[in-house]
């Protein structure tokens, strides 16, 4: 006995056409990576793996993108909840502003940050010891501005889909609003929060444009993997640049698979059905 519906020729044709797009996209991505692998020689890979500077850039990439994601989630969870659950004057404007960094060219974020830290407020912050320009914390700041919106958007959408009545019931069972938020809303939205974190992290680790402008590419200090790729390309060492890009792809793939496995132990949603 099968729990799946009977599928005739037309249903199979429909499924096949859907999968055609999935397979096409995967083939395109794999083809690109395969081309990179084909171009890179073993010597470049060895050089990348042995280089202290590149190892440092890889560690810095991982560290900053993870810190950025953590800070972004501190903002994204309450912001997503506020935008989803409350009606307040200017909500549509606030919702739009949240999306702005997504449409901003990333380079502009770097320029804007540079300009901001030359304003009175920025200079005052610097005078208080909060220096960002050409500093490691500047990497996190730039990554945060570009990538947090992805997390906020994903989490807001999840809260939209979480049944609000469960929170109402929790209030009648003795919860304060904050307890209902933590014990019910956040718990129900946890998969969406993980998805938001993944999006944020993925955007942050691949960021390059604003970093070059705002923190530069100082070896062993502010250089992250995407900037290393740029630097190697600019001096004509394409093989090495591609080897670094492959390293970045491996790190990101392993990290994303690990998070998915940890966060979604039951990976198949109830709505899923056998594909054939």
């Amino acid at each position, binding site marked *: 006995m099968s729990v799946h519906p009977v599928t005739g020729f037309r249903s199979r044709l429909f499924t096949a056409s859907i999968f055609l797009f999935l397979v096409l996209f995967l083939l395109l991505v794999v083809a690109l990576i395969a081309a990179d692998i084909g171009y890179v020689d073993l010597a470049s890979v060895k050089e990348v793996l042995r280089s202290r500077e590149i190892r440092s850039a890889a560690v810095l990439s991982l560290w900053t993108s993870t810190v950025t994601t953590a800070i972004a989630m501190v903002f994204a969870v309450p912001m997503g909840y506020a935008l989803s659950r409350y009606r307040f004057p200017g909500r549509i404007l606030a919702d739009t502003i949240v999306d702005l960094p997504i449409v901003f060219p990333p380079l502009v974020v770097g320029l804007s940050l540079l300009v901001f830290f030359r304003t009175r407020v920025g200079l005052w912050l610097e005078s208080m010891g909060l220096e960002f320009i050409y500093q490691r914390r500047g990497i996190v700041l730039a990554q945060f501005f570009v990538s947090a919106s992805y997390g906020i958007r994903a989490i807001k959408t999840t809260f939209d889909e979480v049944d609000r009545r*469960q929170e109402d*019931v929790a209030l*009648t069972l003795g919860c304060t609003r904050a307890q209902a938020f933590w014990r019910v809303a956040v718990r129900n939205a946890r998969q969406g929060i993980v998805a938001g974190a993944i999006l944020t992290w993925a955007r942050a680790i691949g960021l390059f444009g604003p970093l070059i402008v705002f923190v530069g590419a100082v070896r062993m200090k502010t250089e992250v993997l995407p900037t290393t790729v740029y630097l190697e390309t600019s001096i004509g060492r394409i093989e090495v640049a591609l080897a670094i890009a492959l390293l970045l792809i491996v790190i990101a793939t392993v990290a994303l698979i690990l998070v998915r496995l940890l966060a979604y132990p039951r990976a198949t949603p109830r709505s899923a059905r056998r594909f054939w």
Partner: protein
Amino acid sequence: MIRTERLNFSIGGFALRDVTLDVREGEYFVLLGKPGSGKTLFLECVAGLKRISSGSITIGGRRVERAEPRDRGIGYVPQDYALFTAHNVRKNIEFGLRVRRYPRSRRRERVRQLAVMLGIEHLLERSTEGLSGGERQRVALARALSAEPRILLLDEPVSALDDETREGILVELRKIQRQTKTTTIHVCHDLNEMRCVADRVGILRDGRLIQVGSPDEVSRRPAEPHVARLFRLGTILTGTARKWQSGSEVDSGGLTLRSEQPADGDVEFLIRAGDVRLQPSPSPEAQIAAQVESVLWNDSAVRVDVQAGGTRFRVEVPHGQATALSLREGMALFAAVPPEAVYVFQKPDGEGSLGRR
């Protein structure tokens, strides 16, 4: 126990207006109304899930309209039960006890007690996914009762269930309510559901409470034609009334009927379906020649729509009598409509009324 006084609340284009209601301690009160009449909103106002715009809510002698839901001493079962999908059945039931920091042993004992009472011991370690409608309802009820609330608010608690499960749950609800003596407000739109459980019933229409009383009182003296329709008491007609002895005589179409109530002028009146008798031949009581238009057999009686003197009305006949009469469409019969079957809707001053809604 629960008193709302001139409670007002508006949302979108809808408003609860001046709802004044007194629910007695230990009472099972049903708020009946059509979908969209404001029943759920009223319950949410009492629960503190909606902030009322004016008026007062008193629970157990204490004004609570500014109190948070958790400080009102209520148990709430929403229409779709809203079970916590992230928790299993046990954790759903003990959620309120955990929040209120009950010790573990007391929590376990209370969950066991409720599970036994509601027959869901075998479900305690199950996920809420895959529970049947009846099981979900029981879990939601156990969760609402866990912290021994003074008041239980039930929002259409059995509307999603099949007939058999619904009847079983309603009997249990009544039993549990008697055992726990919890003052209960149960909102629904189903007449049979109300009759199964209600000590008293309130009728809500377009955000206004139009009548409160025991089901029998409301059936005997419906305040408005809307109540009579909701209680499916019979056929509402319009006509002209004039005084006759201590009551009135009402003309409607080609029919002249007598009522025990005094009335004069244009009126709306009810012909009680259950009080009209049908006979195969005329008699001093049954003088109205009628033709059967349709016959509908249901569980409790046979509904017969008849045409008499250009007027159409409904008669309810017991199954045995319907069989004896061999009721069929097009059949000619004689109807007896005694004065007690004709109820004229009264204005507050006792005069007959038309369009007083």
